């Protein structure tokens, strides 16, 4: 029976990984950003713009263009944030929110059929109109890894996804290596903990914050692209539904470690995947909304649990997170 198939462990893990990648990409980028001391509340807006950009550029030029565009857009938006926050020393929370609102509005705008059509026409007039006006784009193809894909359970669950899923894991691991095993990583972490001291030792605080935030933004944009191209290629306004903010909470839950972020992202991916399977179980058919509330409620729960644990004192946020740095102060 269909329901039974879908409920196998294999299906569960596959779903968790597929959904979790959205969170993983966004969280990895944000870990880097926050490790340098910047809080990017614009992540939700960046993801939305990434999704919208990937939609439009994929329609115009294909998947690769869509992916690249999403990362460029993400980096540019993050550049705006870091300029306001580091150079102009404006409040990080409010600036991030403004950026999210801007991203939300702009993505909804350019994703809407009429506007979408005119943009695609500008970029690549040869694309047939019917394609443009469809509210979807061709899905990213799966890229199963030979040999590994035939392993029982794990084969389907881990090794038969599209390329971005693999890339997300690689990024997370690379970030871990960068942060904890390289010179640059030590400098980045020091900037996030104590920019004054890092500055006194000759570390370029401004450059590190700019780069970390922009790379974080690029990954956020990529997360949006993956969400649309690789997970759910039907365009709706606000396609991210708050996942960007959940990703911010995930960074806290992962204690700012990229490896733990993998676990936490897949956990939440699992919750999301579970949501869609619940109706098939016959539960909650009458009340799907309560099931949809799960990720949000679980996020609040994790913050509560986090505050209880003594662990919090040892695994704390980068000490200078959210605080502006100025040499004279």
């Amino acid at each position, binding site marked *: 029976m269909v329901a039974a198939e879908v409920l196998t462990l294999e299906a569960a893990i596959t779903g968790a990984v597929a959904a979790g990648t959205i969170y993983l990409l966004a969280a990895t980028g944000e870990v880097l950003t926050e490790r340098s001391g910047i809080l990017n509340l614009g992540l939700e807006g960046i993801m939305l713009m990434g999704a919208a950009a990937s939609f439009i550029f994929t329609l115009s030029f294909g998947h690769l263009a869509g992916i690249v565009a999403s990362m460029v857009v993400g980096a540019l938006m993050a550049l705006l944030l870091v300029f306001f926050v580091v150079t102009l020393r404006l409040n990080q929370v409010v600036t991030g929110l403004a950026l999210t609102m801007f991203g939300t509005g702009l993505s909804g705008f350019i994703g809407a059929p009429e506007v979408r059509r005119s943009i695609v026409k500008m970029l690549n007039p040869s694309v047939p109109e019917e394609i443009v006006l469809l509210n979807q784009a061709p899905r990213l193809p799966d890229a199963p890894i030979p040999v590994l894909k035939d392993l029982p359970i794990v084969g389907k669950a881990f090794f038969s996804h599209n390329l971005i899923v693999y890339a997300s894991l690689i990024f997370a691991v690379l970030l871990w290596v960068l942060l904890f*095993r*390289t*010179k*640059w990583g*030590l*400098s980045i*972490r*020091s900037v996030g*903990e*104590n920019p*004054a*001291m*890092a500055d*006194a*030792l*000759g*570390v370029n605080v401004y450059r590190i914050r700019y780069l970390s935030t922009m790379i974080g933004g690029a990954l956020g944009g990529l997360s949006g692209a993956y969400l649309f191209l690789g997970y759910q290629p039907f365009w709706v306004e606000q396609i991210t539904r708050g996942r960007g903010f959940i990703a911010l909470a995930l960074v806290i839950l992962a204690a700012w470690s990229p490896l733990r972020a993998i676990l936490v992202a897949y956990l939440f991916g699992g919750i999301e995947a579970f949501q869609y399977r619940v109706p098939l179980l016959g539960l909650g058919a009458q009340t799907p909304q309560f099931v949809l509330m799960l990720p949000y409620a679980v996020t609040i729960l994790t913050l509560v649990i986090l505050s209880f644990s003594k662990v919090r004192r040892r695994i*704390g946020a980068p*000490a200078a997170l959210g605080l502006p740095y100025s040499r004279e102060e």
Partner: protein
Amino acid sequence: MEDTKEKQPLVEMIGIVKRFPGVVANDEVNFTLMPGEVHALLGENGAGKTTLMNILYGLYRPDRGTIKIMGRPVTINSPSKAIKLGIGMVHQNFRLIPTHTVAENVILNAPNVGFFIDWQKIHEELRQQIAKYGWRISPESRVWQLSAGEKQQVEILKLLYRGSRILIFDEPTSVLTPQESKMLFTTMRKMAEEGKGVVLITHKLDEALSVSDRITVMRKGRVVLVKPTSMTNRDELALAMIGRQEGASLQPQPGPRTDRPVLSVINLFVEGDKEELAVKGASLDVHRGEILGIAGVSGNGQVELAEAIARVRKVKSGKILLDGKDVTSFTPRQMYENGVAYIPPEGARTGVVSELTVLENAILKSYRYSPISNKLLIRWKEAAKLAGMLIERYQVVAPSINAKVKTLSGGNIQRLVLARELLGNMLTKPKLIIAVYPTSGLDIGAAEYVRANLTSMRNEGAGILLISEDLDELLRMSDRIAVMYEGRVVGIFDGYRASKEEIGMLMARGVG
């Protein structure tokens, strides 16, 4: 043959002049540092020693003068340049990242570290260096777990790792226990033996005598004496530092001390910010009409004790009695209502809200009580009257009571805080005043004003608990002086007869 050649100085500072608005910090100062020597730069606070070394470290540019390193004239316009020249400074406030390990702190942005960090190798290197000096720290420990002395060792490691040949220590023993200070001096001698040059900035005579090879004494921006340590003595140095024999200090006028203790602290235990015990069984009383000063090296629990008595910090165990009443679990508001005034340390930061106006700050504590308010509403007219009175009586210079406090100078902010605490209690006159570093950061005029006010409150019958880093201030003002060491009161002196040396010894060692 090489031995007889004159050793070239590591550092030569020639004719250094540095002016700040209103004061000449360095006035034609000459200073040399030879390799293999520990050179003490001795002088009272404000003599210009730190300024001189800050110039060497690239934090300031001299107005005139030359600096030569190993015979070559150089311009040092930033600490990074100084580090490149092999000059390193260990400051009083540690520049360390508490959550990172010792190793992470030491190698941050050091030039000789490769892109990929081989932690094994670095830990091993550091362990060797640590063993060489006979220290006990481990490269993998987190800095927040270390004691002050150990943190200082990390700072030293940082400098050594970057190849510093010239190490400047700015008042290093101010946060150390006596054992740690001894350890530090041993380290300094070892460094000198290795051919490095060590500068010790200090105002403590005995330190200079015990560890250095040469001493330069500065007073009021000038160099007044340069001698090999073996050829000088305490008296000569003291005379050079102060300009007169260290003799009798000013005594306070006896006050109307009564036999009634207004404050009794009994076996108090208080936790500090990091969950360790800062006060470990302190007991004392303060009587009406007396000033009890508390002396001690900073960090021995004085501030936490004062905060506990003012009830802005929780008490772990023990009792606090106010006029015999047990107030150990009172809230700060209740203390206020019972006539306790509290002048917090860093009044400009914690005692006022800088974005609010003078008017609003004037009623920061009295806003709940009549006539400033009635039940729910604040009566700003009454508040304005109070604010006007405060700034008039305490001569607070402010454009208007509606000016934001952040526009006032530090001295005026402190005056406002004092005025509010001493005069602004709408219910009763304060019977107990807890003053923590009340004159810190103030110019001489403002500081004298504060002292005069506290003394007159004492003369009117209040009991005052005065915590100060300035032993001279304590000696001038206190009827009795208690010494705190490692969270306990280890001795109480008669304020009229105590000597600085006796108190100093107790402060430094905990035993007379």
